[in-house]
């Protein structure tokens, strides 16, 4: 891929595909929609196909829902921080809230027969289903969730170029 060669040529050409953008958002439902739309736009610009764009935007939406509802509990004094970082190999999206910290042990398996008919509890599962890597870091001052989707073929291209 031409753009990958460009990336390897020197840091001055990285602007073609690299991106780092950060948003600080209110704890509202509007933020959830904005996060989803922004993720969809950036994923499309990155070159992901339609299904992947849907997966990425949905994962971001679910993470934003968790941040706004369960993390910040709609508190107007608490913000949601949304970062997008695009490298030659990955699109990395980080969502942070200022809540009490997600208790990972309390997230039930939504596929367990006894949970199938529950009306909630599928958000984290969907995020994990849709992204290549998911890291969740709860702390006393909030939860950070990092979502990674690998950009097509670039790992192979980079490997070949370095040989």
């Amino acid at each position, binding site marked *: 891929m031409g753009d990958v060669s460009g990336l390897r040529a020197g840091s001055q050409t990285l602007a073609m595909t690299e991106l780092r953008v950060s948003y600080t958002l209110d704890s509202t439902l509007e933020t959830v929609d904005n996060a989803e739309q922004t993720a969809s736009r950036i994923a499309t610009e990155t070159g992901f196909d339609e299904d992947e764009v849907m997966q990425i935007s949905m994962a971001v939406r*679910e993470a934003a829902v968790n941040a706004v509802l369960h993390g910040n509990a709609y508190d107007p004094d608490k913000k949601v921080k949304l970062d997008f970082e695009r490298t030659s190999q990955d699109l990395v999206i980080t969502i942070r809230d200022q809540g009490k910290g997600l208790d990972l042990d309390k997230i039930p398996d939504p596929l367990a027969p006894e949970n199938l008919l529950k009306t909630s509890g*599928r958000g984290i599962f969907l995020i994990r289903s849709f992204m290549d890597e998911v890291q969740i870091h709860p702390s006393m001052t909030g939860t950070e969730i990092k979502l990674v989707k690998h950009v097509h073929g670039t790992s192979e291209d980079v490997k070949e170029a370095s040989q």
Partner: protein
Amino acid sequence: MTMKTSTRQVDGVAIVDCSGRITLGEGSVILRDAVRELLSKGQKKILLNLGEVTYIDSSGIGELVSAFTTVRNQGGELKLLNLTKKVHDLLQITKLYTVFDVRDDEAGAVKAFS
């Protein structure tokens, strides 16, 4: 696009044509209200036509489950019609595809209500 529903009657079955997004907030509430209204009128055979639903999130999935169990608990039946690929795939990965009675033919779906 926001969520919209319109309901029609075919052979004793209430068919709810849904379009737009079933997501946290308005979309989920509109679906919930549509199902509740039918139940309050004694309509217990409900077919949700999701053919024009463009997007559904975990809250929307929860709302479908809630509608399904609410109708069933009142002695009724709720079936799904015309899933888009996106909704179909979501129900597959959440293992709900086999929980719901999913149909792709309206006349056949209407006949399938007992």
